[in-house]
């Protein structure tokens, strides 16, 4: 036997995943428990995202996979190769031509469009987990919409640091109901969650949870009236490669004498801009 079942998983598993995804879409921001399977990669490498992607893929799909914005890192390359092999899908690095995008910790800079599906890899789906370790308690807090603890946490940040000291996995409120962890995307990406034309699905393999944001869903980053949310990034820097001022930047250490540069975290966005600049110059 040399072939895999389409998209690797057996049909009963995909049905289970698909039912969980539909319930997640019907209850935006609520974490639906599902029976996570062992995948041929370790937990922490995106097994939740991979299972959600496997449940959604069509043979006609064009798949893009990014890890911290980059198409060319180990995690992205291996997941892309995995699905090219087990589902026979076409792959791409271009955000605009992808029908399904699996991502670890970024939302592409290029605005998503209707019909696209963005699948997030999620390590800890429960936004209240580090405030309250007991699942029974956090479940009740979600049921009762009792989110005072989270507001206190953000207030204590302001009291201690003068601002809400959270740069990534910044909690959001979905349609005024559930508080949701947007996965460890930088808070720079939070505004892209709101009212997106694309369907956003979140898979946490180790924690056995799937949740979703349907298109055109209201997603607000938590804040206070006198301390409004700001989508910050490296202040005063532009990309050293393409010169972009509007993209999220990675800091790259270039030597052991304090040398550093800032470059776009989204490699496709950066490469597209560089190509366009070369064309303009020619």
């Amino acid at each position: 036997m040399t072939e895999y079942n389409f998209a690797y998983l057996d049909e009963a598993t995909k049905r289970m995943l698909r039912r969980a995804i539909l319930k997640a879409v019907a209850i935006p921001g609520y974490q639906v428990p599902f029976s996570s399977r062992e995948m041929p990669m370790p937990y922490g490498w995106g097994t939740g995202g991979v299972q959600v992607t496997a449940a959604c893929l069509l043979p006609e799909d064009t798949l893009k996979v990014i890890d911290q914005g980059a198409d060319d890192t180990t995690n992205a390359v291996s997941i892309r190769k995995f699905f090219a092999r087990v589902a026979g899908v076409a792959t791409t690095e271009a955000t605009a031509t992808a029908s399904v995008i699996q991502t670890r910790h970024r939302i592409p800079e290029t605005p998503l469009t209707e019909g696209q599906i963005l699948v997030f890899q999620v390590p800890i789906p429960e936004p209240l987990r580090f405030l309250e370790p007991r699942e029974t308690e956090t479940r009740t807090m979600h049921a009762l919409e009792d989110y005072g603890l989270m507001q206190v946490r953000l207030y204590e940040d302001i009291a201690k640091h003068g601002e809400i000291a959270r740069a990534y996995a910044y909690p959001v409120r979905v349609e005024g109901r559930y508080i949701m962890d947007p996965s460890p995307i930088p808070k720079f990406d939070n505004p892209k969650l709101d009212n997106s034309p694309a369907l956003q699905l979140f898979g946490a393999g180790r924690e056995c949870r799937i949740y979703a944001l349907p298109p055109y869903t209201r997603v607000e980053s938590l804040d206070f009236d006198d301390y409004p949310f700001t989508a910050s990034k490296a202040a005063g820097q532009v990309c050293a490669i393409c010169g972009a001022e509007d993209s999220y930047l990675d800091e790259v250490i270039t030597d052991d004498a304090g040398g550093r540069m800032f470059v776009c975290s989204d490699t496709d966005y950066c490469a597209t801009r560089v190509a366009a600049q070369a064309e303009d110059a020619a």
Partner: protein
Amino acid sequence: MKLTTGFANPPVDAARAFRLVLDAMAHPARIIDLPAIDAPTPCSPAAAIALLTLVDATTPLHLAGAHDSEAIRDWVRFHLGAPLVDPQDAAFALGAWDALCPLGRFPQGSADYPDRSATLIVDGAELRNHGARLTGPGIKSETCLALPDTAALRANAGQFPRGLDFMFTSNVQLAALPRSTQIGGA
């Protein structure tokens, strides 16, 4: 009696059908066309495809009214293996609107686990994009769908995050109405 067939190529056919159903659930009231297949009487092809895609031996199914026919029961036993149960135990239900009512008989989910609620496949009514004004997640500004009973569905949406999710099917067409959709006037 002849048993109608299921998917010709289950992994790929189910994947295609699921993406269409997912599109419908992510865009409430969007009317989508599913492929035509032979379905057991009186089940529509669209409802049969939804069942083949989502229902199996782990999901108790309730057949309501005329849909509790020998042809459908045999088809469910052969293709799905789903236990046939009363409404209070159902994860999925299939029937015409009048046969499925009252809605309170089905699991509505709990405050802790709102996902533990039934999905109702309402078969037979023609799908038209006019009638009740709908807003909410998945809907850009607003949309319309002819609903069988606006008051009952509005009460269902009022229970959010608890509540039932609906798929309306007619011939090869399907439109979804999740509990998250707010239902205005006509």
